């Protein structure tokens, strides 16, 4: 990495996590000459770099790995494939036609790419964004920050924290605590059910950590360090518990600030880019893949998305990708539905390189039927039993061919 950042390339990939690295390898395998991965951290690998726990890599390497080993393998494979990985390079602006503004240790720079793939991932929703009250003592961390301190720095920021949330990542937080001999005093969840799937949900019991459902945190107290939190109990009362830290987990948001400041269309529902079935953004020089599309999926899923995007872009460079055109715009016609990705579908389901699945999410636990409506006519409905933050897909083949306008997904909920 001695030479300075190139000024042009075939494909620039913003973000060197699982999605970006998978795409880069696919592009090189497809014969694309100059593929540059721009990664703002000093090392590529993305979030798994600091997830010092299992399970990663089943889909990609046929074995169960810890995050850092997995990240290292992804990087090694990319380097072997001839990918140009540029670390400590931050993309600061996305300009029309694939021109990128960069910040490098040598100062500002520009890079003109024929195509750009955005793979900037997600971050957890902060304490501030959740409007949690109280004071602002030290020791209030996201899982990402906790993992960095524990696995990268070998630091122990607290010993008796409260964990907020019960998503998959919340259980990563428990494993991270265990690694450092940190004993959470409680795991609290505002909803009535644990968000993550079995068997993860057995973990608190195994680790003998009290799991408090229907319970939120209204305030965090402390001077220089956390001394306790106020819990909102199921009966609506408040209860103080002593602790010396708070891990605010999950409620992921796409890391889309770069996108939001650019000319590209953003889907307010997903928080990610508005894409078509090929992963193409509103400016066809830009594509997106991985968790940036939607919060949140596993590394394996993001990796597979990245690989598909790489192949798609390789075809696009050879002019063998269908032109963007008007088709159906997918909208959510029920407040139980959060988003659908892709947001636009214009070509038949079987079109080469089209995604085969539409990814949906619900905003709350739902039992009932999920259906599709165009121009007020219901096309189909099928049984639905879904939980927030869990994977939910509909085959693209469930959309009618050759239609334009809006297609509304709706939910008919079962009476409780």
């Amino acid at each position: 990495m001695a030479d300075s950042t190139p000024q042009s390339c075939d494909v620039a990939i913003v973000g060197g996590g699982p999605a970006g690295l998978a795409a880069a390898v696919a592009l090189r395998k497809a014969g694309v000459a100059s593929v540059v991965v721009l990664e703002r951290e000093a090392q590529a690998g993305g979030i798994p770099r600091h997830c010092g726990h299992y399970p990663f890599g089943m889909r990609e390497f046929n074995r169960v790995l810890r995050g850092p080993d997995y990240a290292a393998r992804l990087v090694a494979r990319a380097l072997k494939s001839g990918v140009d990985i540029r670390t400590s390079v931050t993309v600061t602006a996305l300009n029309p036609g694939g021109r990128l503004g960069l910040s490098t240790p040598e100062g500002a720079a520009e890079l003109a790419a024929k195509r750009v793939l955005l793979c900037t991932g997600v971050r957890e929703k902060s304490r501030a964004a959740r409007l949690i009250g109280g004071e602002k003592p030290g020791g209030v961390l996201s899982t990402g920050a906790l993992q960095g301190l524990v696995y990268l720095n070998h630091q122990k920021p607290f010993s008796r924290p409260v964990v907020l949330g019960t998503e998959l990542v919340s259980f990563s937080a428990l494993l991270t605590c265990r690694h450092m001999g940190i004993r959470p005093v409680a795991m609290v969840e505002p909803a009535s059910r644990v968000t993550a799937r079995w068997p993860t949900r057995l973990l608190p019991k195994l680790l003998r950590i009290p799991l408090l459902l229907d319970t939120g945190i209204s305030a965090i107290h402390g001077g220089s360090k956390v001394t306790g939190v106020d819990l909102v109990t199921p009966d609506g009362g408040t209860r103080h518990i002593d602790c010396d830290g708070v891990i605010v987990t999950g409620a992921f948001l796409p890391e889309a600030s770069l996108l939001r400041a650019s000319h590209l269309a953003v889907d307010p529902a997903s928080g990610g880019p508005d894409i078509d079935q090929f992963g193409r953004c509103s400016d066809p020089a830009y594509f997106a893949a991985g968790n940036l599309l939607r919060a949140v999926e596993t590394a394996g899923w993001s990796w597979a998305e990245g690989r598909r995007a790489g192949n798609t872009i390789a075809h696009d460079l050879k002019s063998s990708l269908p032109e963007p055109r008007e088709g159906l715009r997918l909208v959510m016609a029920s407040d139980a539905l959060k988003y659908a990705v892709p947001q636009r579908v214009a070509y038949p389901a079987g079109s080469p390189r089209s995604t085969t699945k539409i990814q949906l999410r619900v905003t709350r636990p739902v039992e009932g039927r999920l259906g599709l409506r165009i121009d007020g006519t219901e096309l189909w409905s099928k049984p639905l039993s879904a939980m927030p933050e869990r994977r939910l897909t509909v085959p693209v083949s469930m959309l009618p061919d050759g239609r334009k306008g809006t297609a509304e997904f709706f939910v008919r909920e079962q009476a409780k």
Partner: protein
Amino acid sequence: MSQDSSSEVFDVAVIGGGVIGCAVARKFALEGARVVMLEKALDILDGASKGNSAILHTGFDAPPGSLELACIKAGYAEYLDIRERLNLPLVRAGALVLAWTEEQEAALPGLMEQARTNGITDIQPLTAAEALKLEPELAGTLRAAFRVPREHLIDPWSAPHAYLLQAIENGAVLRRDCEVLGGIYDGVAWRLETSRGGVQARLVVNAAGLYGDIVDERLTGRRDFHIKPRKGQFVVFDKTAARLTTHILLPVPSKTTKGIVVCRTAYGNLLVGPTAEEQEDRSVAELVPGALAALRRRGEEILPALAGEEVTAIYAGLRPATEYKDYRIRAHEGKAYITVGGIRSTGLSSALGVARYVQALAVKLGLPAQPLAEPVWPRLPALTDEGQRDWRAAGNAGIVCHCELVTRREVEAAMEGPLAPQTLAGLKRRTRVTMGRCQGFYCSAELAAMTRDRLAVAMTETADG
């Protein structure tokens, strides 16, 4: 800072490192005095100056004829005068005073008259349509407005840092973690008792903000006023929200408060606040979820497009209000002691003016002034001016804080020098690290490693600001 504290007799001891104390220390240092600043916290700006709206007020709505108005006007003028030499930012925003109800509309002429009385004659009355043309994102229910072109935005931290740094570079001494506990005046000099030993000074200035009355009591045995802390909570939105308004959006004030403001920040965010809530406690400004949610709603009523924007930070500050409306600035005859109290809600704007006023009082008390012939002018790092940010420059050593684009070189520079931070909160105020949308998700580990053994309190166990 290692001199034997009890032997040297300083000309002036300034108690309190808030924006007022920093400006006062600077003024005396530039006037040739040997100054010591005594701050009880681990870092300066730990009191009322920690969290405010960062508006550089013209004084258009200040009480006519008040000392507050005079100080705001002098402070405003001097800030504009010195800011370029210190490399301090100025966002020429202008303000709109907005009327949403009939009653508020009826109050506008009186407010405009008050502004003119206060010497702010360039105000412009606007119809709702004219205001909406200036700010198209404003809710259509607006009835009328007027514009105050010279209400501006500044950076609440770099200004006081610059004042104190200039004082230090011109000979002042800073003692942090140094609480003034008492003192006696022997007719020639004060002998102050602090948590870190004795300090002697010919003149003492009490700029203790939220503790002003307590320090008066400790040093003079009586209080002329009582601090009644008034909390203000804020919600800060991400940078994309800043495009929603250019102007500072002010409501028509009520009898008790200036009301909820919506404005950009010098760092390109958008803030909504503050609340005005009286409380007893002088040190803890508790954030209340209901109040924060109400601020968010109020913001969306004013700028409906705010509904789609992300909150990046929440904070609260305490105004050092008293039972009086005006500032409590007073020289104590025969005691070589000046109280600068009750600098309630305009201290960031008025600080330089307050400092002039205080220095003039000191001259009357007999402290000689010998202005420095060639004072040193330190330059603050450019944290707000996009064009000058370090991430654009060669040799920046890479970005640590991705949300605010803070470089390793900026962090290293902040960790050095006479005003180096002792806490994470202090480092944040000097560099903006972790102040962005991710609130430390990405950079906590790296920052903890960079600051290891270099802060008085390790990052992992220090207050968040």
